[in-house]
């Protein structure tokens, strides 16, 4: 039972996985423009943190770290609730989940940053696995950032 910890998946293994999850979430947060995906990526970062906590708790032999993870979950739930409501309201305003549409507030005199490069014309995107009944949506150039 105790011996098991001497075998390969040591603390550092878990920490590396936690760190990589955290960094992947960070990259996703920086790169993805869908507000929901940004939120989920932030949650991915938190998953990395949770893994760290549990790993440390295991190795420290006390449960404060595990307790902390529970609070992480509670706060994540709170934030999810607010994110959900907020994103819905924002969607109702702009009819898009694109976070780049919200760049009205910036230094005076700067130009808005627009998407210059056009998307490929053939939207051969497969339909979502189980959510949509309709076919793929046409490319909607009018939805690009036009703030």
């Amino acid at each position: 039972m105790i011996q098991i910890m001497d075998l390969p998946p040591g603390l550092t293994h878990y920490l590396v996985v936690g760190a990589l999850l955290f960094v992947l979430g960070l990259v996703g947060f920086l790169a993805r423009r869908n507000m929901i995906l940004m939120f989920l990526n932030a949650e991915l970062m938190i998953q990395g943190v949770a893994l760290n906590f549990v790993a440390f708790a295991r190795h420290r032999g006390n449960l404060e770290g595990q307790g902390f993870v529970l609070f992480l979950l509670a706060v994540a739930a709170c934030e999810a609730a607010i994110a959900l409501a907020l994103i819905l309201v924002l969607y109702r305003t702009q009819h898009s989940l694109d976070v780049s549409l919200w760049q009205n507030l910036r230094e005076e005199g700067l130009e808005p940053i627009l998407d210059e490069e056009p998307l490929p014309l053939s939207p051969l995107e497969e339909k979502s696995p189980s959510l949509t009944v309709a076919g793929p949506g046409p490319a909607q150039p009018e939805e690009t950032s036009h703030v």
Partner: protein
Amino acid sequence: MELFAAGQPGLFRFEYFFALAIGALGIYLLLPSPRGKASVAGSIATLGSLGWLCFLGLAPGGFTIETGLFHLFAALALVGAVFLVTQTNPARAALSFVMVVICVGGLMLLLAAPFLMAANMIVYAGAIVVTFLFVLMLAQQDGPSDADNRSREPGLACFTGLALSASLLLLLQRDQDNADRGLGQMKALNAPVAELRLKQEQTLRREANGRPTAPADNTTFLGQTLYTTLLLPVELAGALLLVATAGAILIAQRRPGTEVTP
């Protein structure tokens, strides 16, 4: 414990850096871009890097069930995370997050935290992701939108990720090396289960009349911690949930005359 077993202690082994760099390149290629993403090359690079990392992480000590499970869960979690980051279709990305959560749950189980595994899955997979799928259904009934086919500064983002992960790994490696040489506090980190745990197990695992209790001691211990050391935070979390609930209702209410046309 020999993730960084081979090589000189204190030196950064460049395999890790290369593996991370290839991974970063792969993610860069996989990230949605107007030019279309280089899925094949990106997947190969990412998977290759992942495989390399797993290989490097494999201990010379041999293969046990636990090692296998660890590598399985870790690899799946990371693959899921990569999917979440790179999927064009947000619904799929959300589903791959579920995979991450499940795999992290598995890792938690390996770390003797079954209660957290369950809680994590229930809260994330069961509540958060499902509700977000609803939002996605409401919002993007036409499938992925224009924004999902673009990324914001993918190159810089990947570079930042690479730099951050490299320095994190480097620091962990430094500590590990020092610990292996018998120096420093990280030794304590890697120490086998502390005496405390033994004591807990000895005293708490049995009933008053000496019979072993139900096997869910983790929950017992956790509960004990929550109601002793962490009692105040528990109360605060309650208050927080109340505020958040009220807040969510407040936000979601459609207020007359406040809607702004885009």
